[in-house]
């Protein structure tokens, strides 16, 4: 009998493989028969092709899907009673958790720490989401923001020029209520002999109709131009128990105001914050009288001025957009090298994700999401890795159970579910721990994230709780995924025959990979801490170009600078007294635009007296300082600029700049009297900018006193006594060098956050490492016993047990070094424009720290095993 052509073997095998345990014999039979029939009608190749096509036809058919589905349930598995299985899973899970106390503790600790960071960001984001939701008109309130482009830099400003609101009001109707706000109300509020700094807003009369800030007493109309509304807590601070309504407050140079109403405190989730409200019309009046510096007609001045609209119900914003585009085109198209456009923003977008500068209050960029997610993952991942590592390492102890389950009818899916459930239980227990950690670190983190800790409120609300539980379950699933897949794939025969490997440190496997990633992450954190400490040290010790030692900055408040100087000069321990408007390097950020023949440059200005340059050891490279006689005349004539200023202005040489005119505005023109060497008057994140010194005594707010006495404390007491004769206000003085240090607080905050997170990540990794070492050495106790009997010294055995882990640590570091190095170099260059880079030292220090920590962890266990008595270990069974 000749062998007749057979159906393609590969196709049959493929089909059988695909169908697994499903009953498909009849289908294959059918296909065979068809193949046989076809063979007599067509060439073999065509019949074969048809066979293949039919295989695929069947694979994609409903009938095969159903058969596969049916076959995946064992005849004995009872799918009807899943509640009972669930109970069983729960019981087994709790039992096995109780049995392995060390591993359970390590897992719960790690997951708690990781999840606490997650909860922190859940509460943070949900708090940020509630921003401005208390305004009744929140659906219809819009803000006009400005995009500017001066050909060098584009900016996205939350503010808009002052004349814009008036223009819309006058020329375009139908846009509902327009509210102008100016935030330059920062001054001293005085009532009786009590004086407090106040920060508030100038607002249009309809402010409280548009925004829902609640009134608790008085009148909210803002009709009285010299009336003021105060918040409850500020009123209490200023007036104590007295009824504030109708009281008179003196606001710096702006005059006297009557308290007309008391508002409830601004809610923490408001994007704007104020202690006092004064009518906008008064602001315009004050600006006209030059009691306040403001340019109300300048379209190129955006800072501090805000425009909000309450559009009528159902009003389309397209009209407004096109009107704004038209206005921008009108006003800016003629200006060279400058362009600006207006955009509208809904109130909901204001606080979150607006990414604008010059904000009215707190605002969050979209980076908050990114930061939250990445920090959570960075801490959570090592914890999840621990879980995965430890549980797969423990596979041996569970293998029999799984084998048994499979034999009596458990299918892959069920085993998988069982282990996922077990992890979810752990992660839910960890959630409790995470909550405890969260309550501990909450306030600390609030103050690290934003300057004013009281502007935030992290609360566990029911909705947050819900998110936290969802988050915990997700964490559980994530952590349990690897082990569950691993366990589900165990072969029952191998498991019951005890040949399933416990798989501790095999060749290249998942556990090794995860350990390496953990070490790499830990290294990154350690290096972060080391690098930022290093940068902080160099930044604080950086030669800023002026002398800040032994100089005491005293706030002048309402004391006349001349009188202050006279009384300070009487004290013997004081060498020199100078006056200034700002503290150099700390808050010297009063910037103005100089317009000169179409060319405008932005310059930082500071008002100082004739002694200032000498007092701070600033280096005058050309010209001369202010004359003493000029210092106290209100008639400014000269200015002293830094070298950068002359460069930007384009003078041919430094000498040529002397005597050149500098036009400030229509009424003021100064001549350059001297030129200083460049020095760092801003923090180091910026390159040195152009700077000009002016000498108008009206602006002096600080007396800079150089103390030469050994008895510093005594001198300060003397000064304070002199002060008490001059003013009722509290004496405020700080050492210049301390203030400079404080200005570098950004570093301390970064270091703090890094330190805390790094501590968590490293602890988690070390715990994971510890349990892996415990496990792998436990499995080798017999081997160690035999080695010792054969004469191996303790040291060699320790080395043998340690070296695998050491290799992994090194590998993790090697992977991490270039990545961390680049990342931190990038971060540093943003923080410090004059940074010299990281250098090799921090890398070495970090490496040493990581290896020390890791080796301590590993050797603590391996040494114990290596030095154990072989008679005990060999008798182990």
């Amino acid at each position, binding site marked *: 009998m000749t062998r007749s052509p057979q*159906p393609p073997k590969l196709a049959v095998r493929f089909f059988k493989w695909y169908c697994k345990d499903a009953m498909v*014999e*009849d*289908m*294959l*039979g*059918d*296909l*065979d*028969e*068809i193949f*046989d*029939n076809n063979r007599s009608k067509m060439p073999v190749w065509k019949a074969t092709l048809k066979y293949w096509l*039919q295989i695929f*036809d*069947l694979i*994609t*058919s*409903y*009938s*095969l899907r*159903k*058969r596969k589905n049916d076959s995946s349930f064992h005849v004995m598995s009872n799918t009807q009673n899943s509640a009972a299985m669930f109970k069983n899973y729960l019981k087994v899970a709790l039992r096995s958790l109780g049995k392995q106390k060390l591993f359970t503790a390590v897992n719960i600790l790690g997951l708690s720490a990781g999840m606490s960071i997650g909860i922190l960001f859940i509460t943070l984001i949900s708090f940020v989401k509630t921003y401005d939701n208390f305004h009744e008109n929140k659906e219809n309130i819009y803000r006009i923001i400005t995009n500017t482009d001066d050909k060098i830099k584009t900016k996205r400003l939350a503010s808009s020029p002052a004349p814009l609101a008036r223009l819309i009001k006058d020329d375009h109707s139908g846009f509902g209520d327009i509210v102008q706000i100016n935030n330059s109300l920062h001054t001293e509020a005085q009532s009786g002999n009590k004086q407090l700094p106040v920060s508030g807003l100038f607002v249009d009369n309809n402010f409280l109709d548009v925004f829902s800030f609640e009134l608790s007493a008085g009148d909210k109309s803002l009709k009285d131009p010299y009336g003021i509304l105060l918040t409850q807590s500020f009123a209490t601070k200023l007036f104590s128990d007295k009824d504030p309504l109708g009281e008179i407050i003196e606001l710096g140079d702006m005059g006297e105001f009557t308290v007309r109403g008391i508002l409830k405190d601004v809610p923490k989730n408001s994007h704007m914050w104020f202690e006092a409200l004064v009518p906008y019309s008064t602001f315009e009046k004050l600006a006209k009288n030059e009691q306040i510096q403001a340019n109300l007609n300048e379209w190129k001045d955006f800072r501090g001025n805000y425009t909000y609209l309450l559009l009528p119900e159902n009003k389309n914003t397209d009209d407004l957009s096109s009107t704004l585009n038209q206005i921008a085109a009108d006003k800016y198209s003629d200006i060279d090298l400058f362009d600006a456009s207006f955009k509208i923003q809904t109130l909901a977008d204001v606080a979150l994700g607006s990414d604008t500068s010059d904000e009215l209050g707190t605002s969050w960029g979209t980076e908050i999401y990114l930061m939250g997610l990445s920090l959570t993952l960075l801490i959570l991942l090592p914890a999840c890795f621990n879980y995965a590592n430890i549980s797969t390492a423990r596979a041996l102890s569970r293998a029999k159970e799984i084998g048994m389950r499979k034999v009596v009818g458990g299918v892959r899916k069920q085993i998988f579910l069982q282990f996922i459930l077990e992890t979810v239980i752990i992660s839910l227990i960890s959630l409790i721990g995470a909550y405890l950690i969260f309550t501990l670190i909450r306030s600390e983190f609030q103050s690290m994230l934003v300057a004013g800790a009281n502007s935030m409120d992290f609360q566990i609300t029911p909705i947050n709780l819900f998110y936290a539980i969802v988050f915990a379950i997700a964490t559980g699933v994530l952590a349990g995924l690897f082990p569950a897949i691993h366990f589900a794939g165990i072969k029952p025969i191998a498991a019951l025959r005890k040949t399933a490997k416990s798989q501790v440190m095999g060749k290249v496997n998942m556990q090794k990979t995860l350990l390496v990633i953990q070490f790499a992450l830990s290294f990154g954190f350690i290096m972060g801490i080391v690098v930022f400490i290093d940068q902080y040290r160099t930044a604080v010790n950086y030669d800023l170009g002026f002398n800040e030692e032994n100089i005491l900055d005293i706030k002048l408040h309402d004391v006349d600078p001349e009188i202050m100087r006279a009384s300070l000069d009487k004290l013997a321990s004081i060498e020199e007294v100078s006056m200034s408007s700002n503290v150099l390097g700390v808050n010297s950020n009063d910037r103005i635009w100089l317009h000169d023949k179409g060319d405008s440059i932005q310059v930082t200005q500071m008002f100082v007296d004739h002694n200032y340059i000498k007092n701070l050891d600033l280096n005058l490279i050309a010209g001369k300082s202010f004359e003493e006689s000029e210092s106290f005349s209100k008639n400014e004539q000269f200015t002293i600029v830094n070298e950068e200023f002359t460069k930007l202005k384009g003078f041919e040489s430094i000498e040529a700049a002397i005597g050149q005119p500098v036009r400030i505005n229509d009424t003021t023109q100064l001549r350059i009297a001297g030129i200083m060497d460049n020095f760092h008057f801003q923090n180091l994140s910026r390159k040195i900018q152009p700077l000009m010194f002016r000498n108008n005594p009206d602006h002096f707010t600080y007396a800079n006193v150089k103390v030469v006495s050994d008895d510093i404390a005594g001198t300060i007491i003397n000064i304070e006594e002199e002060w008490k004769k001059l003013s009722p206000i509290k004496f405020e003085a700080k050492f210049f060098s301390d203030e400079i240090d404080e200005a570098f607080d950004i570093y301390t905050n970064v270091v703090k956050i890094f330190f805390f997170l790094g501590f968590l990540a490293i602890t988690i990794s070390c715990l994971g490492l510890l349990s892996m070492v415990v496990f792998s050495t436990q499995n080798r106790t017999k081997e160690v016993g035999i080695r010792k009997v054969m004469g191996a010294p303790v040291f060699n055995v320790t080395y043998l047990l340690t070296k695998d882990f050491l290799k992994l640590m090194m590998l993790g570091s090697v992977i991490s070094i270039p990545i961390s190095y680049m990342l931190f170099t990038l971060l540093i260059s943003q923080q410090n424009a004059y940074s010299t880079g990281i250098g090799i030292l921090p890398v070495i220090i970090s490496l040493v720290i990581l290896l020390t920590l890791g080796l301590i962890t590993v050797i603590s266990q391996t040494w114990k095993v290596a030095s154990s008595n072989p008679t005990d270990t060999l008798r182990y069974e």
Partner: protein
Amino acid sequence: MKGYLGEFEELVLLTIAAFGDEAYGVAIKEDIEKRTNRSISIGALHSTLTRLEEKKFISSWLGGATNERGGRKKRFFNLTAEGKTALSKSKELRDELWDLSQVSIKTAND
């Protein structure tokens, strides 16, 4: 009556009925192909058979080992009582409609 009887389903049911106890995959397929002069995919046929079985219109059993087709077993199908009811219900509906439309069909043919 549960389940809607599709055109192809009805065809398969009737064919199974015609074969008596001898209806199995290839036989059904070839018979329908011969009578309707259209090609039927094996996947579609098996899916339909599975669905009909789910609806309890047919029942199936495996036959013994065979000499042809690589010694593989055949799966035979048989109509259940419910299947029969479904078929006759379907026929009744058609008859009713035929009676109603006979006049117009006749005139159309004239």
